[in-house]
């Protein structure tokens, strides 16, 4: 395990490696969990009732989300282009029905699987529920009802809402943070390709084989060393996420680890493939950067894929980051290992293809 030890040692000698793998993700993890910038949903409201009550409803939604005016006609476009996360329609006679205690259903539209809007849905239905109770208990007395409502809004409400909203927001923050963990692990592409190119450039790669070391052993030890570094990175960042930020890793944190680890294997395979394609350390670094950031963007490490244009979503199926993020999203939103097996298999397939290409390319060079 001499080569293994040597690689770990080389990694530890340069602060930049730490910065790439751990510090940058850490900074973004902290940002992900600080403030509420990411959680404010954009809600479009169409008010067909125009009463004091409908305005009050609008006001209270405003405390939870950014409200945008939309019309019946442009609501579809607004949703599709992600100008808003959901649209709530207040029907005519909303107030009248409410005071009379008759059943009301607000129509709402939202983008499929947008977890941003789910908080608002919960909020609005809770609000309506409480309004109904007030309407019933004030027996349709308008003045009493509004008085009760004012009182209710002033005290009770904000508390109630933030508590129901928390878990959703926390999940979102966690996903945000995990996006950067994936990004950090993707940096292994750069580290591994650089290390191998350095060995080749310094002629150490050739010299190693003047000793009893075999090429197979060299490769295995290299891969193991990068996976060890990845494991340490994953465990450290996961510990910080859970202990420091109470991140919501879903019901199976071990599966989260597995996904991140499998993703690291893909990173290593890409790094090795790059080292077989380029001629110098500089080229290795350049090509790594050319792959890492765009792949991270396409894969949804920095923002949800759902907000990107459709053609990009289509391309994203072909980058491994997407599958890593997809699996993590499933896990964070309550699924277990069984539900991410496919994603894991796809990641492994990516790694297998890259490893094969690399070894094919190496033998090509050798002959």
């Amino acid at each position, binding site marked *: 395990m*001499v*080569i293994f030890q*040597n690689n770990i040692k*080389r990694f530890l*000698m340069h602060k930049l490696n730490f910065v790439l793998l751990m510090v940058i993700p850490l900074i973004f993890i902290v940002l992900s969990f600080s403030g509420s910038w990411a959680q404010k949903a954009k809600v479009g409201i169409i008010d067909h009732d125009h009463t004091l009550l409908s305005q009050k409803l609008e006001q209270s939604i405003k405390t939870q989300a950014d409200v945008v005016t939309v019309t019946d006609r442009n609501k579809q476009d607004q949703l599709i282009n992600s100008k808003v996360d959901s649209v709530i329609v207040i029907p005519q006679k909303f107030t009248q029905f409410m005071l009379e205690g008759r059943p009301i259903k607000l129509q709402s539209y939202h983008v499929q699987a947008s977890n941003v809007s789910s908080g608002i849905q919960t909020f609005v239905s809770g609000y309506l529920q409480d309004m109904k109770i007030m309407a019933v208990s004030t027996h349709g007395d308008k003045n009493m009802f509004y008085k009760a409502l004012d009182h209710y809004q002033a005290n009770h409400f904000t508390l109630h809402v933030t508590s129901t909203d928390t878990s959703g927001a926390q999940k979102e923050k966690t996903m945000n943070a995990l996006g950067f963990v994936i990004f950090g692990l993707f940096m292994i592409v750069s580290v591994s390709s650089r290390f191998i190119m350095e060995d080749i450039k*310094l*002629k*150490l790669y*050739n*010299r*190693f*084989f*003047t*000793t*009893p*070391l*075999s090429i197979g052993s060299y490769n295995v030890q290299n891969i193991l060393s990068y996976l060890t570094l990845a494991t340490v990175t994953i465990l450290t960042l996961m510990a910080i996420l859970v202990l420091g930020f109470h991140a919501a890793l879903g019901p199976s944190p071990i599966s989260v680890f597995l996904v991140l680890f499998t993703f690291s294997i893909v990173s290593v395979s890409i790094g090795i493939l790059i080292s077989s394609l380029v001629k110098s350390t500089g080229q290795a670094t350049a090509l790594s950067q050319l792959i890492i950031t765009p792949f991270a963007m396409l894969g949804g490490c920095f923002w949800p894929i759902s907000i990107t244009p459709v053609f990009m979503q289509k391309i994203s199926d072909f980058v491994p980051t997407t599958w890593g993020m997809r699996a993590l999203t499933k896990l964070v939103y309550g699924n277990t290992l069984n539900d991410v097996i496919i994603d894991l298999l796809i990641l492994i397939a990516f790694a297998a293809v890259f490893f094969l290409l690399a070894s094919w390319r190496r033998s090509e060079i050798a002959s």
Partner: protein
Amino acid sequence: MIIEVKDLVKRYKDFLAIDHLSLTIKEGEIFGLLGPNGAGKTTLTNTILGLTAIDQGTITVFGKELRKHEREIKEDIGLVPQDIAVYDELTAYENIRLFGKLFGLRGEALKNGIDDALEFTGLTHLKNKKPSQFSGGMKRRLNIACAIVHKPKLIIMDEPTVGIDPQSRNYILESVKKLNQLDCTVIYISHYMEEVAAICSQIAIVDKGRIIAKGTKEELSRLIVDDQVISVDVEAPDYTIIERLKNLHGVKDASIDGQTVRIVLNELKLNTVLSTFLEEGSTITKVATNTPTLEDVFLTLTGRALREGSR
């Protein structure tokens, strides 16, 4: 025999790098491999370590067939590569330790091996420095230290003195002799006649993937010992004169290097040579006669200078 190479062929695509080469090296020798750029010296040593696949032939090292015992054989060989191959970011000590470990040394044996290698190459006082702060000569010495840490039975040094100061060069030559006295067989590859002549007990001259002469320094010189070497400086030498000289009975070789025409002859008198120049209308500026050196042997055998622009 520590090495037996039989009928070795190595091709790079259509290029014949080793051309049906056979060679035996006895234990305890300092064996010099002399040859111009691209002669195939490095390729030959690479095949001896199994680093390069061969197209034909057999290689036996320490009495074992290379193909079957590659790992075992490598444990007892130290190769000092032509290009310096050490980590700039590791100290001299750490570099040597890395190779010691790769050769399977642990604990005391490793520690002793490193200390001996450092002392042997005169780097003990620099052991905690990184090669990035080393001079060319120090780097070369570290390059050697990494190859002797495991006390190999056979050391192959591929041009270990390229581009260094005379002092470091002498140091290295002395240490090669010392290694040899410690029962180590050495294969010493070089472009430098003087080095090979000074330390090697056997010398093989390699050209175009073949061994064109082999023997002790004396035996090689004897190949042309009855010969005389004349250098004639003329104002504008041309190839007509070379052709005429070569056709003279008794002239073994004639070549031009700048203004100097170099003629190896055995029976002929100086008169005949000089009158040929005069007949051609050349203006002679200087005439010198020498006894042949290894360099002359090489030149006569290959028709080329050992190093470009060396004469």
